[in-house]
């Protein structure tokens, strides 16, 4: 593993000033993410997992500590288009076809028309949506829409993929399928992924590293290494090793919660 991490977070804190006084969304968070890692941030609502992801993406500004992405500040990284971001909802623009949606970042970043066409075709292939290029978002199922939004995030080939509960709104059958596809995608593209979820099986199945977070103030409770073979399938969820890791995550979540109430 390379010595310089993709993401290096040291002593990060973020406090929102609200009318009811300050809310400590993040407090003393430190985390290193290496190239090729698949890191899941898991925790109950209000633990700051989404906020942490948004800080990395320069969508929120920390009030303390340091974040560096490839040695750059989050803002520099954003301006350099260093990451692709997948939101909780597909956020496809309804007036654009699927192909045009995938091409949106390419248009903004000034890719040529031919280059865009090639990348859109590749993107559609990557997420198994070939043939849907000229459909509008409403003509696709929720799962297909979310796959399109993943293709959109990957269209300009960023090294880092930030995903904020991308499958949270989908039913379990679709979610399982997408989890498997995402794993293949990760294996194929060698991206570094930061993935927010509140599903334990999802986190254990996908990750090389599970960051268990706890709320009020949001902080890291535990980091669990999780190195199943890269070509794993959903069957792995029945193995004792899988259940063992899942148990540790569950325990971590419980401990993180216990002294709150």
């Amino acid at each position, binding site marked *: 593993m390379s010595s310089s991490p993709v993401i290096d977070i040291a002593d990060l804190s973020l406090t929102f000033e609200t009318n009811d006084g300050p809310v400590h969304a993040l407090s003393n968070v430190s985390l290193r993410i290496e190239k090729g890692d698949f890191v899941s941030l898991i925790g109950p609502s209000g633990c700051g997992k989404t906020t942490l992801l948004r800080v990395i993406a320069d969508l929120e500004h920390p009030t303390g500590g340091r974040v560096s992405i490839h040695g750059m500040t989050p803002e520099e990284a954003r301006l350099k288009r260093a990451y*692709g*971001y997948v939101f909780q909802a597909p956020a496809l623009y309804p007036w654009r*076809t699927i192909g045009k949606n995938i091409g949106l970042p390419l*248009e*903004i970043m000034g890719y040529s028309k031919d280059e865009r066409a090639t990348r859109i075709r590749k993107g559609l292939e990557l997420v198994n949506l070939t043939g849907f290029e000229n459909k509008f978002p409403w003509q696709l199922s929720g799962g297909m829409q979310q796959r399109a939004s993943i293709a959109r995030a990957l269209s300009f080939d960023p090294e880092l993929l930030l995903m904020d509960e991308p499958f949270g709104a989908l039913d379990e059958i679709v979610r399982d399928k997408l989890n498997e596809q995402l794993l293949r995608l990760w294996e194929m593209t060698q991206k570094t992924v930061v993935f927010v979820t509140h599903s334990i099986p999802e986190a254990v199945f996908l990750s090389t590293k599970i960051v268990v977070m706890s709320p009020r103030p949001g902080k890291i409770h535990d980091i669990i290494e999780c190195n199943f073979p890269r070509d794993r399938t959903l069957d792995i969820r029945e193995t004792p090793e899988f259940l063992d890791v899942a148990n540790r995550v569950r325990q971590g979540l419980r401990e993180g919660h216990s002294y709150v109430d």
Partner: protein
Amino acid sequence: MLKALWSGKTLPVLVVSAILIVLWYVGAILLNSDMQRDAFANANNTNYTFADLVIGTWSQERPKLPAPDQILTELHKTVIDTAPTSKRSLVFHGYVTLTATLFGFLIGSALGMVLAILVVHVRSLDKSLMPWVVASQTIPIIALAPMIIVIMNQFDITGLVPKSIIAAYLSFFPVTVGMVKGLRSPDPLQLDLMRTYSASRIQTFFKLRIPASVPFLFASLKVGVAASLVGTVVAELTKSEDGGFGARLLAGSYYGQTIQIWAALFAAAACAWALVSLIGLLDRAVTKAMGAR
């Protein structure tokens, strides 16, 4: 067959229209009967039946409320039987009104869109301009129109332009309000997405705000075009020498030609309906191309 009619819009509309027409004829009897009795008295006719009275109220030359068929006859006469070049033709007056309306509508909606873009992008304008935009609509147009025409006349601006300016004055407001709402309609997620691409303000404007505002824009254009027509007609009440529906209404009221007034009213309403429908068609075509189901 009947069921299919009932479930559609056709039958309910027909039923309501039929009821209105019946009420109208009844109203004509009530409103015109006094005058009819006087007319019979003047002609020394004391020996009339109720049927005579009723038929009389529906066929007066200057009734207080003309019967629908009288208005239709007048419309037929002034739209189809009269040469469109004649000053007695409603086609002529319609042309005068519609050109001023459309010109005013173009100015008004262009101005409305520009104002909306400024208001959305310049924070201080949101605070300083928007109250004036709202205040502009609290002034009764019927009071403002003559002043605008007189002042413009002072500068030798006559003809189409003063009327169009009044039409524009009424139509820019709904367009501004609708467009501001449309440009602000993208949700935080859609805006965040643009931010993750480091999109510039101009890119966000053209690729997100403008397309998102289209449905809002069309809704307000429909209101705006109808308002433009009202503005033009009001302007023509003051500036009647060029003709137009307003001039026709004015002339009708001078000479107590109620049938003429009602015919002009219906023709103006039909024009407004046609303009709104035209924008509706354009709306459907554009939103369909933009993926609406």
